């Protein structure tokens, strides 16, 4: 097994020949977040699963704080995986942050992606004048205080005890739940990366077709974000808002989400 494969716990399964589907999970979770979707794809496609650096299932020593201070670090990881597996073209399904990582990767290497399915994606989480990202500065401040308190405790050998449920804002609670699954220093770094990232400027340069899928009630991703993406993406795109709740619909409502994702994977955007 190559170094990249092993570090990212890459798994290639499925005997299908309709193409290759690469599944990218969001921060704080790992490839098991796709457990309900995989059985439905296994017969038709070759599926590649991997864990991002910093996920609980990877060796924490491999997390390079400089590399991952921006999303590009993750995009390069994705490209490295595709190259090591000699994948010429794939359908990339990315959840939350991974969706943006896929978009970034496609800017560098557009020929590697035939389409990107974006689940619960957002180019920027913090509100701006004219832009509703979903989070206020106040909310984020409280989250950072929590992460910093955990980080300090961890460094000093005490128990980091703050979790998402302690925060006031329901949106932050929901979104950050998975952040508290990561090691405190990595979680703090990721939080900084997430809330400082702003992908709005690069959207017009995307050339790969994008399928935008999200919950109708996701506190972290208002429906207006899906609209924004659709309007500003340079490539052709389509939006589907599912009648699900929460930021991890593929885990909380698999019965609704799986058919939607299958449809978007199998079918292209009608011109």
């Amino acid at each position, binding site marked *: 097994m190559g170094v990249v494969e*092993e570090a990212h*716990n890459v*798994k290639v399964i499925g005997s299908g020949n309709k193409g290759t589907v690469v599944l990218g999970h969001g921060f704080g*979770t*790992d*490839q*098991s977040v*796709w*457990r309900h979707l*995989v059985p439905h794809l296994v017969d038709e496609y070759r599926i590649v*699963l991997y864990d991002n650096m910093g996920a*609980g*299932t990877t*060796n*924490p020593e491999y997390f390079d704080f400089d590399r991952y201070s921006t999303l590009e670090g993750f995009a390069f990881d994705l490209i490295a995986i595709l190259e090591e597996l000699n994948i010429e073209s794939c359908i990339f399904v990315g959840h939350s942050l991974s969706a943006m990582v896929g978009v970034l990767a496609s800017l560098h290497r557009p020929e590697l992606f035939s389409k990107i399915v974006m689940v619960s994606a957002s180019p920027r989480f913090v509100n701006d004048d004219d832009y509703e990202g979903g989070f206020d500065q106040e909310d984020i401040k409280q989250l950072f205080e929590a992460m910093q308190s*955990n980080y300090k*405790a961890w460094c000093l*050998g*005490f*128990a*980091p*005890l703050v*979790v*998402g*449920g*302690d925060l006031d804002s*329901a949106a932050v*609670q*929901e979104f950050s*739940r*998975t952040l*508290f*699954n*990561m*090691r*405190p220093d*990595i979680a703090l770094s990721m939080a900084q990366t997430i809330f400082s990232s702003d992908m709005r400027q690069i959207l017009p340069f995307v050339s790969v077709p994008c399928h935008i899928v999200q919950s109708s009630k996701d*506190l972290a991703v208002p429906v207006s974000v899906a609209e924004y993406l659709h309007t500003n993406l340079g490539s052709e795109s389509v939006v589907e808002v599912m009648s699900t*709740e*929460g930021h*991890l619909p593929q*885990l*909380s409502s698999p019965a609704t989400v799986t058919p939607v994702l299958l449809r978007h994977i199998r079918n292209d955007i009608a011109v």
Partner: protein
Amino acid sequence: MASSTITTTTLSDLPDVILSNICALVADTRARNSLSLVSRKFLALERSTRSHLTLRGNARDLHLLPGCFRSISHLDLSFLSPWGHSLLSSLPIDHQNLLALRLRLCFPSVSSLAVYARSPTSLELLLPQWPRIRHVKLVRWHQRASHIPLGGDFVSIFEHCGGSLESLDLSAFYHWTEDLPPVLLRYADVAARLTRLNLLTASFNEGYKSSEIVDITRACPNLTDFRVACTFDPRYFEFVGDETLSAVSTNCPKLTLLHMVDTAAALTSPRAVPGNDAGDSAVTVGTLVEFFSALPCLEELVLDVGRNVKQSGVALEALNSKCKKLRALKLGQFHGVCSATEWRLDGVALCGGLQSLSIKNSVDLSDMGLVAIGRGCCKLSKFEIQGCENVTVKGVRTMVTLLRKTLTDVRISCCKNLDATASLKAVEPIYDRIKKLHIDCVWSSLEEEGGVEETSHDDDEYERSQKRCKYSSDEALNGFCSEDRVWEKLEYLSLWISVGEFLTPLPMTGLHDCPNLEEIRIKIEGDCRGKRKPSEPELGLSCLALYPKLSKMQLDCGDTIGYALTAPPLQMDLSLWERFFLTGIGNLSLSELDYWPPQDRDVNQRSLSLPGAGLLQECLTLRKLFIHGTAHEHFMNFLLRIPNLRDVQLREDYYPAPENDMSTEMRVGSCSRFEDQLNSRNIID
């Protein structure tokens, strides 16, 4: 006067033969370890007399096996790391054979083997090494792979150890019931020599079918110890009824130990109390009498039937006269166990030789019945009562008083009228003798006085029997158990508590002073989903710091169900609950902890969360920690901060154990890295 030198005689002056016999009798591992440090001679003696060994360590380090334990007869390989993986299968084939050979060279006399057999290959490698094995225990919590042919797991055992095999334990081995009977048929001569067969497998939903039980007992007529999980529900296909029982007793007349346990009653919902309208089983009294008559050697009997067995009193009286050696009895859902309508003893109260009695879900058992049992079963040292709605503190307390000389182990659970206060009140008469106790932590409001109001008619009956018995009872049946009681002999305490409740009232109910309490088991159960945040931030584990000798704990939140990552807005997820449960655990000086994290059933995840790991790392006196679930590597690394921690393992010993990475099972690499770090530290003692 010549001075005489004073010589002292020490243990080492005893002849070697005697010393070696003494050494052989020492069972406790830590004692043996200490023994081996005394001198080279004692070291040699200890090594040559140690008979039981559980191997811990990483399977890939098997070449480092010590060769000094030549007398091991009982070898347990099921705990090797990485836990739950096929032994040796990750190595190239020629290495596998060499390591199996090495195992044989180091342990030439193995007669009893326990091994985690994820697939038959481990057995095919190991069993040929010891053809004289008498006892095999297989462990598998992972699902049985469907490509294994029927019986494939067992063929190696019967093939290689057929000459001397006597006992097979499948109680922790997930298999299909169809796997076993054909193998027993094929190796009929081996089956005929079997004396022990344990088929009480925790993972079964329905258990063994009636015809399978008949076939098995017919193939193994020499069984003395037979335990099987089955279903007594007549609505199910192949339920156990009269015919099955007759067949069992006819086929295996030499049985001394028999457990027949209904899977629904005991394994899937052990605390469910069937109401008055629960269905009947297909077991009749007449058959029971014949059944008992045909098993005169019975010493221990468990019939945990999940449906009603009516009017069983007569059968139990027959039990007493036919099975004179019976010492332990457990009955589930038997009615008429002891009706105590007249002065004379009836039903189970006539079984005077019993030392252990467990009555579960007998809806008609009354206080009078308990008193009769107390009078009749006068040698009882262990008594358990579960799900009996009609008994009250008066009945139990009177019974306990009657059995004061012998009773040391009492368990009270799921009885409507016996909450924590009442249960303690009930066992108060033996406060200075009781060694093991289970109560449910159901707290009544503090204004209530203990006990339940009874009708005056019952009171008269009760008074009369009191006078007749001529014993003295405590007058104060109202109020709480006195806080002055010193529970001097109490060593083991087991508690059940519903999720959301607190542990803090426990000392105030009377268990304030337990100077010798060493081990505690706490089971927290319930559905967290939709529950509001508890009014206090912690369950109250710190209140256990009262008990000075407390060193071992089993904290079982495994049946607490909630959301791991997908909690709806503003609902508590499992990380908050885990923090609630574990806060304060660092205040106890525990040396050994078994912990079952709460689970998210939708994704079959039982995983340690951030606050969980953080709170566990505060138990600075821990030496052994077993987490029955999964955990991320970086959370495990928190535990490296505990200075003397030396034995840690993630054991997914619940059904079904997560099969692969789709369930965030801790990966083999992570496991090995963690253990390497753990083992590379200097341990002071």
